[in-house]
């Protein structure tokens, strides 16, 4: 779904002594079918921005358009209900939303809410649980009896079960071990590639994830979008990013370090292990140290 924000402003607790501006006049346009990452320092407004994408928050000023829905400050909550059927959202620590007696019932909660019959919902739930790698033997267990990593996967299945076209991920891998992080991100990426119209908006502190999966990256600072572009474009600006309290992916750091230590010419925009090794090999070859490689 196409996303367009015009002068989007959001103020928390407006009209109280605790009033706080989280977004200030954000203009934004994201075309459909893209993987977008939002990076930014803590408190830069990333989470506030993505909560507008499924109408959990309404702008204090300005408008935001998601597909056919236009959200204005005066838009009624009940008109946003149908939007949530198409926009799924995985919060930080999504396992906190589990509540049902069995894992299967918990995943089926969303589809039932949006009018599926119990049987249909359970079929969808089974399919999604299979996708996230939860074995069938666990379906009838309580979601509170399984491990933390499994809980997170069940919670994610609960969101995928809505079959959204736009998926919002708010730091979905926080608190997981490196292997778990990779599996979960891989899972999302596979889901994303299944059809053409699916889009993902990912909020992350992991520059590696942002670089690896995104078609484009938004950089946020103090409630504003300060830069937008391809991973190559964004991560070529190491100094600017560091000023905002951000960094570049480790692969870029490594190549940068090699280049500045040994001189010579090398493209540093490699984001996967394979690419990085290839760049290094080409670089070494060029400098004539190919005897040992």
């Amino acid at each position: 779904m196409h996303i367009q924000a015009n002068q989007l402003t959001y103020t928390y607790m407006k009209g109280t002594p605790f009033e706080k501006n989280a977004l200030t006049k954000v203009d934004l346009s994201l075309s459909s079918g893209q993987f977008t990452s939002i990076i930014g320092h803590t408190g830069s407004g990333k989470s506030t921005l993505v909560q507008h994408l499924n109408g959990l928050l309404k702008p204090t000023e300005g408008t935001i358009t998601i597909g056919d829905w236009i959200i204005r400050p005066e838009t009624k909550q009940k008109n946003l209900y149908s939007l949530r059927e198409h926009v799924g959202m995985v919060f930080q620590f999504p396992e906190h939303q589990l509540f049902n007696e069995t894992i299967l019932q918990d995943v089926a909660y969303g589809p039932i809410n949006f009018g599926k019959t119990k049987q249909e919902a359970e079929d969808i739930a089974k399919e999604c649980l299979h996708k996230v790698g939860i074995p069938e033997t666990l379906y009838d267990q309580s979601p509170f009896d399984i491990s933390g990593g499994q809980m997170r996967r069940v919670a994610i299945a609960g969101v995928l079960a809505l079959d959204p076209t736009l998926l919002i991920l708010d730091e979905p891998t926080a608190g997981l071990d490196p292997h778990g992080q990779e599996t979960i991100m891989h899972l999302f990426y596979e889901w994303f590639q299944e059809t053409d119209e699916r889009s993902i908006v990912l909020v992350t502190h992991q520059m590696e994830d942002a670089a690896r999966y995104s078609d484009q990256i938004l950089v946020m600072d103090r409630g504003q979008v300060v830069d937008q572009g391809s991973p190559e474009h964004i991560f070529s600006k190491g100094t600017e990013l560091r000023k905002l309290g951000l960094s570049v992916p480790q692969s870029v750091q490594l190549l940068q370090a090699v280049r500045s230590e040994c001189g010579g010419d090398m493209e540093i925009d490699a984001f996967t292990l394979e690419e990085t090794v290839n760049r290094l090999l080409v670089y070494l070859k060029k400098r004539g140290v190919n005897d040992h490689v």
Partner: protein
Amino acid sequence: MIMFDNVIIGQYVPRDSVIHKMDPRAKLLVLLIFIVFLFTSRHPVVLAFAVVLTGTAFLLSKIPVRYFIKGMRFIAILIFFTFLLHLFMTREGTIVVEWSWLTIYSGGLIEGSFIALRLFLLILMASLLTLTTTPIDLTDGMEMLMKPLKIVRVPTHELALMMSIALRFIPTLLGETSKIVKAQMARGANFSKGSLWTRLKSLIPILIPLFVQSFKRAEDLAIAMEARGYGGGEGRTKFRLLSWRKMDSLAVGLFIVFAMLTVVFRFV
């Protein structure tokens, strides 16, 4: 979440004011005196005095009026209902309005207004206490005031600790609730559709995760406290000391005068 933005119960508003600087013990004492004696007399002079006291305290506290009024909306409904109840239930004095089944007596009108005014003053004073005192100060004050009860083996320190933990976790719980509400709304939860029963049932997906989280947090907190060697109040010294100043004596004195006044007007 919009519905939590206006909760002012237990909320502390940092300001630089005389009331903020008062000793929490003094504030607690003053409130106690006020609550007890506000209901002693219904003489107009006493009520006028109470209004002046509350009004002055509110103005001195520098709490933004708009913020306060917004937070009082829910309580205003409560006061209004109490007023109506007294209006219809009291059958004294002369009849003011008589319209089919509805009869309003002058006694009801007076009684209702009295109760509403007193309730309003009471709640205003009580919320001023939490609005101008940090939870830590408040519990410190309570612990000190309860100290004499130690002789009869009331676990004052533990009570104070329980209270400070409860107060400390109000904002955390509100934040948590708002997050879970959002997560379930994203999964299609609808809290404003259907019969009362459906609406109540729609709260289950919020309450269960909230309880689960709270128990987990309680356990984490207990472990963290034990890990840092917490062993109860015995022999524990205070890092922050309360200081009683002239202003505090003055405030308590003023409220004692108010208390005596109510007694005088009641029995003389």
